[in-house]
């Protein structure tokens, strides 16, 4: 039995979904996925879901405080307005968030905004699990990991986590992390070493095998793995563990060979910056190191104290998104890459006593690239709560529609990157509003 089929049968018997001949790295899909996280909960009224002039059914004003409350009247440029780019109405402010308008002006035709995603919780981690995995379970693999595992093909890794927030679960053997402070650098670059303590009588590395010795070690370890398989193999779980070990060694080697140059901008001891993460993400995909990457804006969107911080964050986010789209287009990747910009929740309609906003169990998302562009799907009401939609079209359907829940959204994203969502989110109707027609 060859190794690939070995994995398939082992994983299938463990009930790990989606592991079929087509989807265990041989999914055949050629889409890439970049999951871009705005961690902490963005205020959607600042951009995606404008509520300026919102009224209740009785005609009275909505109880929603958007970015307009921060306007400095003495500055005539500091004005909130709803501007429609193509078919996408967006909240803009040329003084505070110029990058938002610039982005939509250039890229509205490749962007799809989804409003009114129901998150099912108002706590950070439960919401993050839901929006990333489509389940409330923090041990299940997330979108990037699933896609990388299924469609990674012969790439060293299926997915790479540059953000620190990705959830790989049982598919971790196909994914890689760079570390909170870029510590992967020391593992990739033989010229990058940690500093031994001052009192230590040595420097690192303490041993660096010659090429021939390294090869001999690898051969020895491979034979040892085979011995272990002979001893402990025979059950699905154990076979999978042993295969993951062997494949992880192989993946690690290939990742080291292919990714070292790409991750040069990393500096040990420092978190990677947002724009650097975007560049690395494009490089990793462009150079076929992986199929999916998770990126973090690095802003703390959890503005309980000063909601006005959202202005700067949105401006930074959209400056990055413009850069990302330019990079993807210039590399010829835009047509087969889906970028999913997600935040685990939005913020309350009203501000708290401290001028901040608290958590709200709904959110928006934006998909870019290989999606149906120049559209908005879904909506929220005058309470900033999700309105039912037609999951097939994304059109609001208050009377007969369904809520676009976190699992519907995730199932839809999986379909967009040619992963069968039924294997991972059984009986969940995918949200197809952003699917290319």
């Amino acid at each position: 039995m060859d190794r690939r089929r070995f994995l398939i049968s082992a994983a299938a018997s463990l009930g790990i979904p989606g592991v079929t001949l087509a989807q265990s790295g041989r999914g055949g899909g050629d889409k890439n996925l970049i999951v871009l996280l705005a961690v902490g909960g963005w205020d959607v009224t600042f951009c995606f879901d404008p509520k300026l002039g919102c009224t209740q059914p009785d005609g009275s004003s909505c109880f929603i405080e958007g970015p307009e409350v921060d306007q400095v009247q003495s500055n005539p440029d500091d004005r909130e307005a709803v501007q429609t780019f193509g078919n996408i109405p967006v909240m803009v402010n040329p003084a505070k968030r110029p990058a938002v308008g610039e982005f939509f002006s250039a890229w509205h035709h490749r962007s799809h905004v989804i409003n009114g995603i129901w998150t099912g919780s108002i706590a950070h981690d439960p919401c993050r699990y839901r929006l990333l995995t489509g389940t409330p379970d923090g041990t299940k693999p997330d979108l990037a990991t699933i896609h990388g595992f299924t469609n990674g093909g012969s790439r060293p890794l299926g997915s790479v986590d540059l953000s620190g927030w990705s959830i790989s679960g049982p598919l971790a053997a196909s994914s890689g992390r760079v570390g909170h402070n870029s510590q992967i650098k020391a593992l990739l670059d033989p010229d990058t070493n940690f500093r031994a303590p001052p009192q230590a009588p040595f420097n690192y590395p303490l041993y660096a095998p010659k090429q021939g010795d390294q090869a001999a070690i690898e051969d020895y370890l491979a034979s040892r793995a085979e011995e272990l398989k002979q001893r402990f193999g025979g059950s699905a779980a154990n076979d999978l563990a042993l295969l993951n070990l062997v494949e992880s060694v192989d993946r690690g080697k290939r990742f080291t060979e292919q990714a070292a140059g790409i991750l040069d901008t990393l500096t040990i001891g420092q978190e990677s910056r947002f724009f650097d993460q975007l560049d690395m993400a494009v490089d990793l995909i462009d150079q076929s190191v992986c199929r999916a990457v998770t990126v973090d804006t690095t802003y703390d969107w959890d503005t309980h104290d000063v909601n006005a911080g959202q202005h700067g964050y949105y401006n930074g986010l959209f400056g990055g998104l413009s850069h990302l789209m330019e990079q993807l287009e210039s590399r010829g990747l835009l047509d087969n890459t889906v970028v999913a910009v997600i935040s685990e929740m939005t913020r309350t309609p009203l501000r708290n006593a401290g001028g901040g906003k608290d958590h709200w169990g709904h959110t928006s998302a934006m998909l870019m690239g290989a999606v149906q562009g120049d559209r908005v799907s879904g909506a929220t009401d005058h309470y900033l709560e999700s309105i039912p939609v037609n999951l097939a079209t994304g059109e609001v359907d208050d009377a007969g529609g369904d809520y676009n829940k976190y699992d519907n959204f995730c199932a839809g994203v999986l379909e967009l990157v040619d992963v069968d969502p039924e294997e991972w989110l059984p009986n969940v109707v995918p949200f197809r509003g952003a699917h290319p027609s």
Partner: protein
Amino acid sequence: MLPIVAVATLVACGDDSTGNQAKKPAPTDTTLTVDSVVDTDTTTDTTEPVVPGEATELSEVEHLVRVSLTLRGVRPSPTEVEAVLADPAAIDTLVDEWLASEAFGETVKDLHAELFLLRTDTTYQLPVLGPLTAAGYSQAEVHHSTVEAPLELVREVVVDDRPYGEILTADYTVANAVVADIYGLPYDRELGGWQHTHWTDGRPQSGVLSDSEMWRRHVSNAANFHRGRANFVSRTFLCEDIGGRDVFVEGGVDISDELAVAHAVSTDPGCVGCHNVLDPLAAFFWGYKEQLKRGAINSAYDMDCEWDWEDGPNPRDPYRIEHWCYPLKFYDVAEQDGWDTWGLKPPAYFGQPGRDAVDLGWMMREDPRFATCTVRNVWSWMTQTPRDEMPPAVVTELQQVFIDSDQSFQELARAIVLHASFRRLDVTPASDGTIEPSVSLLSLRPEMWTRTIEDLTGFRWVANEDGPSCATPSNICWESVDLANSDLYGYRSMFGGVDGMTVTHPIHTPTPTKMMALEALAHDAAGYVVLTDFALPAAERRLLTEVEVDTTDESAIRSQLAWLNLRILSQPVAPDSADVDALYTLYTAAGGGDSGWSTVLAAMLQDPALVLF
């Protein structure tokens, strides 16, 4: 005037698992026939004996390795291996010894660090300012002291074999000098170390339920009103994840009216299901500040720990700026009835009224769910399986062990590692389809990894990435960081561990970055052994006890290799065995001498048998 209560106070429960209320499916027509309801065939007795499934069991030594790593994070010594080979029953005695060892205490702390998500070295560090600077503490000391304090309380209860529930009811807290200075606790500096002490701010003393680091890690912002803390307690100690349920509120609540919100959580069907339990549980935690963050402390010191009243009212009223200067005031008795101020439910534990955290601790300790959840938590950690997948029969069995032993964590641990299923690697189904429980291959945890390597080689993989000016103006020096057990600079979460913040669940499978990190550590550890062992007399060495760097005698080298196989891989082999042949080939191909030994040790210290057990 009360601030407007945002609807974020709501942690409402949906009344259906999908939350899709807008569209309900049509009822299905089901017509039952008499034949489909009544089994009319009563003539045949088909009882057959059940043929049990086939089990693959670990050998005595393999089981010993598994138990040793699980209980104390290191492999068995050659003496221990030989004892079990001579008498398999010797493992019982060894387990007793290991449960009494310091190493088991460290394992207990590791387990609870993961359960409580406490060892977060990438964020939330208290700054070194004021008296902490005067005392000469480093950032590393402040971090390690604060996160280890509640773990030390747990460790002591377990190692002393007191009822485990005491972690919830202890009428003391545990502190070292650093923690004592941070919170102003009584402390005997001559005695030093970790000591029993008590909180002086009026908070109820009830084990980890009163620990400041627990509530620093598990914050409760704004109108959350301690519900997050309540859910943490319920999820962690009772296995009841109230907040993990989907939240569905239809139609909205008048968010401009805080009384409407308080009314909704008590009467709205979509809210009551969770809030009837959650809010009274949360009421036990009023008194604690929402959070205690580095930025607030820095700001307080910038203001010289005193609000300038010429600037108007204190924006943090009723808190005082000086609360954020050392010693920190994390609990305020004046706030402990805040639930009443906000029209919320009084403290109660699943319907049973209580007064404070002391009552809460005792009610939890005596709740059967605490016993069951403890069993699940410990089994889950030791077998590296989800706690809700624990076989029901094993839950029942081990719960009884735990209860009958008066909540002895040690007895529970013993029962787990000596349970038949813990030695059973795999089993096929019986003829009736039932499957006996088994525990498949386990994966080396980062804490085990660092202890194993240090135990074998004397090497700790530490690095110092501090800048030259890290000590001033506020000490941010982390000094020597254990690369195998840190996320600040090291590979803990990349090795499958949790960092407590972004990575909240461990990974129990080999991964590419895990194997890359393992290789790097193995290389450095191998080089360390060759560097240090050959500089010492043979009797003082860790591994290379039978040869010198210039030894060329094949029999001596083979004898050394056989001993390394026993020590590192716990496998007794003969010097002329195939195992030693392979190692000898590795040694000679590398040119022998220090290069040969480095190569051999680098290979053995990343052997698959170390990674999976």
